[in-house]
């Protein structure tokens, strides 16, 4: 029995080393090679350039707090939110009074800033996402912000609303996932229109 254990464990060590070369080096390098050739932009992180420099990624949400920008959802990633070095959720439970308190404060803040009746503040404006890096808001929340953004930028509300509509993505194939607006892309379009 001991002889078997020793012999098989030695075989296991050799097996582990050989398979590590295959699965830990050759496999990821092959995926890297093909994806960099076939979808270079995506494999690199879908970076967005503006005026010759990187300003973000279309997949990673970022903080916008000024009145002239569309705001993203609340975020639990890092102390200030939207920190990709600390992705994650609040993990607060559905009956946690602390979470209920946060929801009330967010509702007051959004209602005040966007001039929306408290009862009509959209759910995604009241809740933090799972990654803390959610790049999207619901079309409803984007539309609710249009008047504030238009006012701050001296733009026609209808023009801003058109931008929101133009940047509203449908469900994939019409039924997979949810309708959404990419906040960074919308704000870039807003900048171009201002």
């Amino acid at each position, binding site marked *: 029995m001991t002889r078997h254990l020793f012999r098989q464990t030695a*075989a296991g060590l050799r097996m582990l080393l050989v398979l590590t070369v295959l699965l830990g080096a050759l496999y990821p390098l092959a995926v890297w090679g093909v994806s960099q050739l076939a979808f270079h932009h995506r494999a690199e992180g879908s970076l967005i350039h503006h005026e010759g420099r990187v300003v973000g990624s279309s997949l990673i949400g970022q903080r916008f707090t000024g009145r002239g920008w569309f705001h993203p959802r609340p975020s639990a990633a890092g102390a200030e939110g939207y920190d990709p070095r600390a992705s994650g959720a609040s993990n607060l*439970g559905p009956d946690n009074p602390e979470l209920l308190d946060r929801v009330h404060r967010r509702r007051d803040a959004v209602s005040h800033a966007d001039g929306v009746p408290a009862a009509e503040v959209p759910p995604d404006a009241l809740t933090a996402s799972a990654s803390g890096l959610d*790049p999207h*808001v619901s079309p409803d929340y984007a539309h609710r912000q249009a008047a504030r953004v238009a006012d701050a930028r001296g733009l026609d509300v209808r023009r801003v609303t058109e931008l929101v509509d133009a940047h509203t993505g449908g469900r994939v194939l019409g039924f*997979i996932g949810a309708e959404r607006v990419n906040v960074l892309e919308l704000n870039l379009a807003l900048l171009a229109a201002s």
Partner: protein
Amino acid sequence: MSDALAGLLTIGVLVLALAAVHVPLGDYLARVYRSERHLPVERFVYRLCRVDPGAQQRWTVYALSLLGFAAVSVLLLYLLLRLQRVLPLSLGHSGLPPSGAFNTAVSFVTNTDWQWYSGEAVMGQLAQLAGLAVQNFLSAATGLAVAVALIRGFVREGTDEIGNFWVDLVRSVIRVLLPLAFLSALLLAACGAVQDFAGAHTFTTLEGGDQTILRGPVASQQAISVLGTNGGGYFNANAAHPYENPTALSNLLQTFLMLLIPSVLPRTFGRLVGSPRHGWVLFAVMAVLWTVGLTLTTVFEATHHGTVPREVGAALEGKETRFGVWNSALFGHSATATSSGANDASYDSFTPLGGGVLLLNMLLGEISPGGIGGGLIGMLVLAVLAVFIAGLMVGRTPEYLGRKIRQREITLVALYVLAMPFAVLVGVGLALAFPGPREAILNPGPHGLTEVLYAFVSAANNNGSAFAGLTSGTTFYNTALALAMLFGRFLPMVLVLALAGSLAAQQRVPVSSGTLPTHQPMFAGLLTGVAVIVTGLTFFPALALGPLAEGLK
């Protein structure tokens, strides 16, 4: 289109896709493990490793091979994590602390992928590539190997040999996991998952703040993580992170990949034992349990049950906009029913009863359809238990597939069934008995108890998902959960291999009028009942104090 209709259509497409590949992939797997031929690349691996692929192993040698392989895997991964500072591609991260490195090494070798750490904060690229991703392949291949060895117990007669662990392992990697993972990784990358070796990149955001994005070889790792029902994330946010799961399409693809191999293994089983109808019975039980669980999870999430979801008008805390509630419920349910444990949402923030169903999926022992290999194993063990119970009730000799269920077999089955609850209840009891581990709880009330219960259930069932509010990176939890993972993985595996050896040594009993038919719907009903009753009797008190107390108040 309403959320409900869109969600139902998405589920429909998923089910159709799984149905389309069920027979071809299941039959392919049967050919892989029955084949006498070795591929040239496999011969090359055997030669390098000085393994004789023609040798057959008794169950004891098979088990020793598996345990020896796991032991060196844990040891080398532990060293890799401890020493990553002095190794290349560390990105400046220092080595993990001893209890943390032990927990993570055990976690990935046992196919659990419980993560006490935050990937972006502590893991260098070498640790992810050569350590964690490699074990994602190897632990999945080990699960497949044990499942195949158990099937051989029902196929072979009058022998003490149940196959060769190294051949089963290498074939699982080369002919099954690697090609599927490669294809899946490219599909994920096409959706936008990153595959890049650049380090951190800091830039000024549009509004003028700073943001630092982190990338890495994510697509290749995420593909095998879900395909192998491992579930470990490259980043802390796991499959909620847009670089791991960029779109609703990649989300559906990952859900499909988690369910793929566990759901076709009954077909492989049916093929190998020469009775596809026996495979269909096991598959039907898995499908029924999965469907019931999905219905419950979705109803609780979509009707925003619970204080905060009701106040907000949707259970959106801890969920991503691009997935929405329906697809998050589908993913979460499938991840806990398959022992993957990946998450595209915060399970801690799920509605009380929705989160309770996730817990229940694991408490069933991961059989709906369960982990890669482990799901079929669990279902076969329950099938043996079911014929035994039926035999007692109607006075028939317990037999399954022509094998007598004698004292030795039923003892092994009983120990298998008791192993997981033992690890869970002892672990939770210890954690709650001491003030230190109690302080790690984030949420007050019954939800806090659920966090601790969930952690030990997840570890002992090698699922790896978490009610992540629990601060589990302490010496106590790292050690206790690692022991639960080891106990929950290797004790059942050894018992199952012993069962395989015991069954293979028997001569087939001819079918008689006294034989309980095990290939008909009635047996599927009996099997479902046994699965639910075993779980219910063991865990109802714990569930009553946790999710039920919270959800029904």
